[in-house]
């Protein structure tokens, strides 16, 4: 496999604050690579640097064999980029936006109609092509932004939290589109704050505090979770969480909507659970063995990281 993106000891410092503090990894050609981490982890800085929009303070970024410091225009020719914020012209129509970016990337006239038709096909924006970009729904805006990023069929596609603030149905549709682009041979680097999206990637890098704390395929990352994990419910979740926190042998407690995830040093017996139910005043119910999700592992890894510091 050839390497599409290579990040070597990349560091980016703003003033004295290191936004990204020494990161190395590579993304292979044709890979769908996920970058996950909380806000402020340094994902956007890393992505902008890969797109030649920021210069590394030290280290280097190699995009398809070219250095981001010197081959700026050549890199921009083969790269598709979708920024975190919607960055198209809101006062122009869908079609005008697409045509403008086709001009910017010098898409030849003979390929243009065919290219636009394909983009309309997957984005299903054709019936909206006269509508102003600013009047589209969140999901449609993202699809338009993706279409503009794909207008020159880039070999490498880089997306910064593309589904942020978009409804779940549109998110699902968006990821199906990403998968189909990958199948056509493109390399995709995508950052996201949604853990269930991370599970759709071939490999995932966990970023925290300007560093990468884990890189692996999602299944492998999930398998790393070392403790028995249970999911349980109750009426007063906060109280329930505090109850578990005060028990001995508890590794981690985490609230997920209307459920609580609890992990233990030793696997508890059914008798233990019945005892806890009584102690909690009968509030505890529906406890069950639970497969660790990306989020469980991610929180575990971050906690490990914090302890190490």
């Amino acid at each position, binding site marked *: 496999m050839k390497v599409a993106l290579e990040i070597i000891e990349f560091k980016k410092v703003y003033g004295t604050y290191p936004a990204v503090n020494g990161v190395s990894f590579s993304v292979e050609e044709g890979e769908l690579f996920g970058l996950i981490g909380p806000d402020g982890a340094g994902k956007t800085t890393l992505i*902008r640097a890969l*797109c*030649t*929009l*920021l*210069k590394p303070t030290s280290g280097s970024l190699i995009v398809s064999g070219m250095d981001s410091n010197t081959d*700026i*225009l050549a890199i*921009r*020719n083969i*790269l598709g*980029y979708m*920024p975190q*914020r*919607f*960055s*198209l*012209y*809101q*006062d*122009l129509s869908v079609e*005008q936006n697409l045509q*403008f*970016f086709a*001009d*910017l*990337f*010098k898409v*030849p*006239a*003979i390929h243009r109609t065919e290219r636009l038709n394909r983009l309309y096909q997957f984005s299903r924006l054709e019936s909206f092509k006269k509508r102003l970009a600013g009047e589209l729904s969140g999901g449609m805006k993202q699809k338009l932004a993706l279409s*503009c990023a794909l207008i020159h069929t880039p070999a490498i596609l880089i997306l910064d939290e593309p589904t942020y603030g978009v409804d779940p149905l549109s998110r699902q549709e968006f990821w199906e589109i990403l998968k189909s682009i990958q199948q056509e041979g493109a390399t995709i680097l995508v950052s996201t704050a949604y853990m269930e999206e991370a599970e759709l990637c071939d490999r995932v890098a966990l970023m925290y505090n300007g560093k990468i704390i884990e890189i692996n395929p999602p299944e492998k990352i999930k398998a790393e979770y070392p403790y028995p994990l249970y999911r349980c419910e109750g009426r007063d979740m906060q109280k329930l969480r505090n109850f578990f926190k005060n028990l001995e042998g508890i590794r981690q407690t985490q609230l997920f909507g209307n459920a609580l995830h609890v992990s233990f040093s030793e696997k508890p017996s059914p008798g233990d659970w019945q005892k806890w139910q009584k102690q909690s005043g009968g509030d505890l119910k529906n406890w069950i063995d639970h497969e660790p999700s990306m989020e469980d592992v991610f929180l575990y890894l971050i906690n490990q990281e914090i302890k190490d510091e």
Partner: protein
Amino acid sequence: MGKEKPIVISIAIKEVLHILKDPRSLVILFLMPILQLVMFGYALKMEIQEVRIGVIDYSHSPLSRELVDSFRGSEFFRLFFFEGEERDINDLFRKRKAHAVMIIPGNFAKDLTRESLVDIQFIIDAADPNAATMIRNYVNQVIMNFNENRNDMIPIPFEIRGTLLYNPDRKSTYFFVPGIVALLLVMISALLTSITITREKETGTMEQILVSPVRPHEIIIGKVLPYILLAFLIGIIILLIGIFLFQVPFEGSVMLLLFLSTLYIITALSLGLMISTIAPTQQVAMMLALIVTLLPTFLLSGFIFPISSMPKLLQYLTYLIPAKYYLFIIRGIILKGSTFMQLFLPTLYLSIMSTVLLVISIRKFSINLER
């Protein structure tokens, strides 16, 4: 590869779409200068009207009344008899009751008929020196006419008669309308382009177009093109109104004026672009554009104050004001009918200035998001 349209053209077309999508701003863009021109045009007049002259007449003769009447013949003066003492004159001036005081001596009638040489005293309030000079000139003229009418048998050996060229009536509108045109053109043009790049930085669209292989000069030139046309149209309207509403005579070539006005507009647009490449936000950009165009054009271009009467240091500074050269051009063409060769130097200066500003803009334009 088929023939593609240059990126410069696509960017220009995109700017035109932005302009057309915002008709309200477009209307304001056309109305604002028209309103300003009309307001300035009527407000900025230097002619003095209704000069109040207090008369102390010790002569009390038909001749002295004839003299006073000769002043009343002009719309320029308002005369009133002042019954007080000479030492109360100061009070007249302080209370702004009179701009000047004429004292006719007691022996006026007698001396004038006998010796035909007589002194009358004029005391003029010189708090405003320009006005004082003008009042003195007018007074002299009236007195001279009075003398000539009285005894035309006395031969006058010779007489200096100045002829005013280009503006024989000394109408300040002729002087100011070109100045206002120069001011409005530079202000509006600089404002137009000052926000074009900062706006894209603020809305984030710059981040998206930067990752394309577009080059700085393509963005800069593409952005300036449509505004040349827009500012040119505004310029024509201002010129038409200036010339027809204020009835400024037009001596020179219309084509030459339009051509050199375009050059001036390009200089101002480039100035706006340069501001746009360095200003962090739209608001800062607009403020900067106003600051560098409005006051310097008013004060340092020769619009109101003659450059030759400025301190040396400020005189050097005027070389940096585009309006200085344009005033030279527009006054020359409109009032004197100057030809291109006569205006070669200011044209050259403007060309150099716009080129330098454009080059700075392109150099300053950052192709990444680093500050």
